[in-house]
């Protein structure tokens, strides 16, 4: 391996955003015929580094060499011309255009504007690597995994032979992930250089040939995947040894807390989002909810929190003494006063629960501003709470007066989850709490959730990482197309089994 010439050599790359140093003299080599996993905690500068390679950002200093030639990448177009293509975490696709139109977007090809010819070439690329894409389909009609495929075809169409994928598996089901990995291996064997940014250690071990690790904007080192293990990589990323097991304490004295019966929800367009969903969430227990994204998870949590109009069914909040109270028909405020707390982390992380332009303390206040009788708001306790959250969850921020929008994604989530937990709820609804978080922060969050569970809180945890759900949850409810596909015990459940339940009702065979 040592004699190979790197396709990309990045040397002493530095990039700052205001006072924040995102990359500090980073070195990185990328080889052809190899899959490189780029590892690092949130805010360690992985995406920034790759954005400089793909022309989105411009480095403050440092050199980039492609195939031995010094290059300057000023714009995404320069990057294409050098054969670099990046598949971003948030897809860069125009919804109202078709797949083919998105793929040829921005190109200056020989001859006239000929969508037919483009379509033909797209089909050829699909056949070569085994993609399934309908070039005429509009993006807004596509599933997440189809969109991702379009993104990959797009960079291949542009003749990229250096591919960068930023957290490509974050939104995929296990089956889709397997298919993606097969394609990536195909492309590697075809001599392309592939960089994948991910937080999931088992994926790194399964897929990559080499890993490179960043920590707080600095390059820590790279090594062959075969010579290392998850523990070592995590320690390097975090900078100190980390325990890699998720605890699962036995539930203490579980009692029914939320009882959902026959819940049916339609969205604004009249599409059935939840159909006859029934389950019980118990105190001191974590109920995991698994399902392909968009299977009704959001509607379920929102219905419990009183944010969704319910068509049929009942949701009972059961007190310790066994007396029940109907939640349907109550407004969100009085449900929240019962101790039901919702922390939903949407795909764009800021959309629900936090206001980007407000600082940490003000965001804390969003929960508490109604308290007290004085006509003036109490600004002191939110400040204290913000300081406490920053300290306990190790939020990296210049101060509590910083607008939340300026924090990196992981830190934004810590603020949100920290605030919800601080209100001492009796029911904690949390969705995608660790979405996009690095290992260390994720474990902090799991820890927080476990502590809530030990306090006797009924936790409903919607997650996308099955491995985590299987380790963390006491029971797992699997949703499939808005229906309960099955409820399995977290201890002893198999990943395949849950994966099957996610894609097919009841997880049974095809003729069901």
């Amino acid at each position, binding site marked *: 391996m040592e004699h190979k010439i790197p396709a990309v050599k990045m040397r002493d790359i530095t990039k700052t*955003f205001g006072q924040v140093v995102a990359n500090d003299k980073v070195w990185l080599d990328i080889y052809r015929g190899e899959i490189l996993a780029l590892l690092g905690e949130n805010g360690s500068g992985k995406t920034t580094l790759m954005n400089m390679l*793909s022309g*989105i*950002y411009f480095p403050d200093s440092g050199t980039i060499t492609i195939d031995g030639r010094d290059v300057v990448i000023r*714009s*995404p*177009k320069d990057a*294409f011309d050098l054969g670099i293509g*990046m598949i*971003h975490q948030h897809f*860069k*696709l*125009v*919804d*109202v*255009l078709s797949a083919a*139109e*998105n793929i*040829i*977007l*921005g*190109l*200056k090809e020989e001859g006239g*504007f000929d969508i037919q010819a483009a379509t033909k070439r797209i089909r050829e690329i699909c056949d070569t690597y085994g993609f399934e894409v309908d070039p005429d389909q*509009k993006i*807004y009609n596509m599933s997440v995994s189809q969109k991702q495929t379009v993104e990959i075809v797009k960079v291949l169409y542009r003749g990229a032979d250096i591919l960068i994928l930023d957290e490509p598996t974050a939104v995929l089901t296990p089956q889709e992930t397997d298919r993606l990995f097969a394609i990536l291996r195909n492309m590697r064997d075809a001599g392309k250089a592939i960089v994948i940014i991910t937080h999931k250690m088992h994926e790194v071990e399964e897929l990559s040939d080499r890993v490179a690790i960043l920590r707080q904007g600095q390059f820590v080192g790279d090594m062959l995947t075969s010579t290392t293990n998850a523990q070592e990589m995590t320690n390097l990323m975090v900078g100190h040894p980390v325990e890699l097991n998720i605890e699962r304490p036995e539930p203490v004295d579980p009692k029914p807390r939320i009882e959902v019966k026959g819940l049916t929800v339609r969205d604004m*367009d009249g599409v059935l989002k939840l159909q006859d969903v029934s389950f019980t969430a118990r105190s001191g227990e974590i109920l995991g909810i698994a399902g392909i994204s968009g299977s009704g998870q959001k509607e379920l949590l929102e219905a419990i929190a009183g944010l969704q109009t319910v068509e049929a069914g009942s949701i009972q909040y059961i007190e310790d003494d066994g007396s029940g109270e109907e939640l349907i028909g109550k407004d969100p405020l009085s449900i929240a006063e019962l101790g039901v707390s919702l922390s939903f982390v949407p795909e764009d992380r800021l959309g629900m629960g936090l206001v980007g332009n407000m600082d940490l303390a003000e965001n804390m206040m969003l929960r508490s501003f109604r308290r007290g009788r004085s006509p003036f708001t109490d600004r002191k306790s939110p400040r204290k709470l913000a300081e406490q959250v920053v300290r306990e969850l190790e939020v990296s921020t210049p101060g509590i007066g910083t607008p939340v*929008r*300026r924090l990196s994604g992981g830190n934004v989530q810590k603020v949100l989850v920290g605030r919800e937990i601080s209100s001492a709820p009796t029911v904690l609804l949390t969705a995608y709490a660790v979405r996009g978080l690095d290992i260390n922060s994720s474990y902090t969050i799991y820890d927080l959730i476990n502590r809530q569970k030990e306090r006797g809180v009924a936790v409903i945890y919607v997650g996308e990482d099955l491995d985590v759900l299987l380790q963390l949850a006491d029971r797992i409810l699997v949703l499939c197309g808005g229906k309960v596909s099955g409820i399995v015990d977290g201890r002893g459940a198999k990943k395949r089994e849950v994966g099957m339940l996610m894609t097919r009702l009841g997880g049974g065979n095809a003729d069901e």
Partner: protein
Amino acid sequence: MFEITSFFPRAVMQGVPLLFGSTGETLTEKSGNLNLGIPGVMYVGAISGVIGAFLYEQSLPSPDAINGFLAIATPLVCSLAGSLLMGLLYCFLTVTLRANQNVTGLAMTTFGVGFGNFFGGSLIKLTGSEVPSIALSATSSWFSRSLPFADKLGWFGEMFLSYGFLAYLSIITAFIASFIIKRTRIGLNLRAVGENPNTADAAGINVVRYKYVATCVGSMIAGLGGLYYVMDYASGVWSNNAFGDRGWLAIALVIFTIWRPNIGVFASILFGGLYILYLFMQTGENLALKELYKMLPYVVTIIVLIITSMRNKRENQPPASLGLSYFREER
């Protein structure tokens, strides 16, 4: 009496400024710029043409010495230059300095109208005329000149061939704009810029250039609407504020045509017709009824808005990033 042969040509003549305005605004909006300064741009387009024509007519020894080519070219070039400057100003503020588009647009409408009235008033003072208006009839006769054989073709000539060249230009421009937006690579890139500038940028499209060019070309097209109004429709007579709310109507037309200039060709005639319907209806002394008739174009626009948002078809929605400024390194 309601006569189609007299109603239709007047509806068309009312529609032409609206068509220019809406074609220009559609191009602009496709790039994600919501230029609410269009009424101001059209106003400036009109007064610039007037200034050009005025200076040219003044330089002549006698009105008969007018040269046909210069009579048309001078106001045309002045009008294009005036509205181009307005477009450049808008782009500089919203694209380069990333100012709020709504505020900038509204300020430019106020500015454009003020600019027009100031210079209009000055010119009226210069001529020392008794009525508060200036007449550029020599120039206007060149602008409103129709095909020589039009009157010989009876009702057909009256309905379709009786207009000045700018009227036909407005229709051609609309179809060309439609073709470019829908069928060319430039149009595809432009739509992408307006829908999702991040994506367009990552695809190697120069977002700033597309926004600048689309907005400036759009402004120039809209400015021609002002020029047509004063030189052809108003027979070369400029008086302050006579242009009225046609600029806003043009913006309403953009929504009405669901961002398709080719639909605008027909919709502008419909709007023009609705705009003057009160003149053809027997309203008598009932002024209130008259005002209700004048509301029709806006009522129709609201109905279209309701229908398109109810049908919720993605292709009929405004460009997704309309009104938002774009900065690549935004975090």
